[in-house]
């Protein structure tokens, strides 16, 4: 997993609420036994018509989409299935961070496991962010803050909270698996005590 501490870049806004994992990666792309190349299928049903032709004017097909490291998406992002293919597809597409006002439990967990930083912002601040499509912002995981340039030239700094262990692992690019492996004696003791 690639470490992530500070990400700066233009945001891509998908205002729709409840974007589910079937939108992020339709099930027909889940038959691969590897995650390689999955980013090419991110939002496939939004980016391509039923003939498989790219919908040119869709925001996700514009060149700026691939240059935006930060996805800003409507409330309850990532609801639905447990497919880890969803955060992997977003990473493969080029995103490193996803910001919403609520992120579904399993998707959030999966994101933290694969190195996509899930950020949940306060509703009012999130509403402001929705109006800033294409604007450059900074997400600072060290400080747990989103930094946004204000219209008057000043800078706004919005705090977010994240599970401390997830933050620890994401900052260092640590695989959570190692933490489990270190608990091997405790696991054995538990098994023996049953």
């Amino acid at each position, binding site marked *: 997993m690639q470490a992530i501490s500070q990400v700066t870049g233009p945001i891509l806004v998908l*205002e*729709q*609420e*409840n974007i*589910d994992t*079937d*939108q992020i990666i*339709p*099930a*027909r792309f*889940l*038959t*691969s*036994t*590897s*995650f390689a190349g999955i980013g090419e299928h991110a939002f496939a*049903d939004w980016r391509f018509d*039923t003939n498989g032709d790219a919908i040119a004017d869709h925001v996700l097909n514009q060149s700026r989409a691939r240059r935006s490291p930060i996805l800003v998406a*409507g*409330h*309850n992002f990532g*609801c*639905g*299935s*447990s*497919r*880890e*293919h969803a955060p992997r597809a977003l990473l493969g597409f080029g995103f490193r961070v996803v910001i919403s006002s*609520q992120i*579904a*439990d*399993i998707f959030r*967990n*999966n994101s933290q*496991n*694969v190195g996509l930083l899930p950020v949940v912002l306060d509703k009012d601040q999130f509403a402001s962010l929705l109006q800033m499509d294409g604007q450059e912002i900074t997400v600072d995981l060290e400080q747990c803050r989103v930094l946004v340039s204000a219209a008057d030239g000043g800078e706004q700094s919005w705090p977010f909270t994240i*599970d*401390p*262990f997830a933050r*620890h692992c994401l900052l260092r690019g640590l695989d*959570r*698996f190692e*933490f*489990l*492996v270190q*608990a*091997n004696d*405790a*696991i054995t003791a*538990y*098994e023996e005590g049953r």
Partner: protein
Amino acid sequence: MSAPESSPKSLFDKLWNAHLVQAQTEATPAIIYIDLHLVHEVTSPQGFDLLREKGIPVRRPDLTLATLDHSTPTLPAGADGIRPYYTEQARHQVHTLRDNCREFGIELHDWDSPSRGIVHVMGPELGATRPGMTIVCGDSHTSTHGAFGALAFGIGTTEVGHVLATQCLLQTKPKSMRINVAGKLAGGVTAKDLALNIIHYLGMNGGTGYVIEYAGEAVRNLDMESRMTLCNLTIEAGARAGMIAPDATTIEYLRGRPKAPKDAAFETAAESWLQLASDPGAEFDHEINLDGSAIRPTITYGTDPGMSVAIGEPVPPAANESQAKALKYMGFSAGQSLGERKVDVVFIGSCTNGRISDLRAVAKVLHGRHVAGHVRMLVVPGSEDVRKQAEDEGLHETIIKAGAEWRLPGCSMCLAMNGDIVAPGETAVSTSNRNFEGRQGSGSRTLLASPETAAACAVIGHVAGVSELQPLQESR
């Protein structure tokens, strides 16, 4: 954070505490032990890769159980013996699971197993799912197993690797919610209708961060298959796990199942299962009281499972932009009667409603009737066990005679990754769990309902309820 030893505990607290290998701290999550790891072909291959990469075995193959369900065709093999997989990649995925199970010594219910089925149908049927367990699977509908008083939830593929390797999972304790459903469900009202109403009440994100316990008279009165339907749909309100305290209904369902304890050991286990119920006075972070007797047969009209109405009600106005977009996608407008909508496809099956009681309900509606000429109806049993039972009872004959297709067990049209697909623009009434855009195929439009309602829609040919069926002429 956790309550003192003496204080009343909830079912969830009891299960959580009993499986703590290492307690949660301010800086680290808890490590919880997993009693049953269910595996299928779609979300496991990269998990097994982790083991090979690290050179480690599956820690507890005896607590791991695998099946083929998601990518499998529901049409039989041809005369050449070749199964009609949708793609070569799907065939390869199934073969990969077979190879992985052989390499790591895991029990796989392959094509030749009389028990193969959708993972959440098969586990309970085998008695592998039991009260007091922690159960995970790389599938969000793992919540189904909570019907037995187990703590069961979906995980991602990285975590599948973690559990294969260590039989443990890193978890931060979720909050708890209890939903009490008082009163009796009216005749013709099913667990599916109850669940759709709960999701409507909570919203599709109202359960986020929670484990839900279902309680109250209406829940206690449900049989096990109905309880599974209710717990299955918990994830559609955003909660990872739903659970119901074990009782006599649970015990009688499990008695004699192949993997359940036998004889005296069963009686001892049953006694301990009854101790799992939430203690009187147990505290929940959130508690909701609903009136079960007010619920009517229900159907969804939007692209999230919370957008539902009682059958006969018009399409409600959109409450926000997302709902407006959903109505546009579905081709509905506010105030419109759902009954105007012609139905193209009816899908009976899935881990939500693919069990024997569901097929009996469908056959009861179809008996002596015929599916409307323009409707394609698929009936897909949830497992080989369900298929055999249905065929022993002759249900398949009723279903075929009515003009529906009788298929082999699998996830089928629930998620359109195995060749069973709803065409763009078509309207499907489905007994499955998700009506998301494109869920049943790009451009497909899904209305979720109970098996009874779906069967009635197939016969009438447009969106309808059982009460709209013409009475049969001959003897009932």
